[in-house]
């Protein structure tokens, strides 16, 4: 059976948004099964169009930073998430925080599943590695 990697994303800022995508895509490329669970402020990243901002005061420089990323050849957030999905990475929205953050199932990107904490913990229990990104 393939190794399993689980990640929990609880923040929606730029850095926390890209980290699970880079890690997840790489792990999938290495043959691992990948499950990423978005909760609290991370949940918004699963919306059809997500534009994460740099954290704190740096949010003002997000546009500049995005341009630089483009120049270096790093794809945009949504494009990268789609690429991860194509590689087989599984994305989940936390059912409880969806209500809290005012996000409906129809707002989510196609392919994102809604999951409760118990179901995610079952996956994490079977995983060799679980990372918390928050």
């Amino acid at each position: 059976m393939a190794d399993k990697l689980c990640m929990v994303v609880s923040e929606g800022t730029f850095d926390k948004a890209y980290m699970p995508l880079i890690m997840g895509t790489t792990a999938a490329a290495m043959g691992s099964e990948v499950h990423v669970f978005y909760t609290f402020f991370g949940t918004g990243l699963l919306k059809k169009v997500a534009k994460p901002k740099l954290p704190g005061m740096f949010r003002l420089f997000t546009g500049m930073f995005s341009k630089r990323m483009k120049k270096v050849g790093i794809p945009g957030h949504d494009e990268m998430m789609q690429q991860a999905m194509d590689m087989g990475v599984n994305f989940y929205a936390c059912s409880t925080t969806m209500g809290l953050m005012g996000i409906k199932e129809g707002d989510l990107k196609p392919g994102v599943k809604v999951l409760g904490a118990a179901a995610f913990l079952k996956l994490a229990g079977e995983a060799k590695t679980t990372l918390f990104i928050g």
Partner: protein
Amino acid sequence: MCPMPIVHLAKKVKELKSGQVLELLADDVGAKEDVPAWCSRTGHQLVGNEEEGKLLKFYIRIK
């Protein structure tokens, strides 16, 4: 740029047959460690590597 060399590599390998050798060119310094790690994880064989300035070349035999 990390992780693109590994992602492209994983996609390309699926199109190749066992025994074929793939040449990978990368300009990401991370690839120096990433490519051998990917090979040891997936079981494909790294048969050689070269450095030409900033360009890294890897030769991988498909399992």
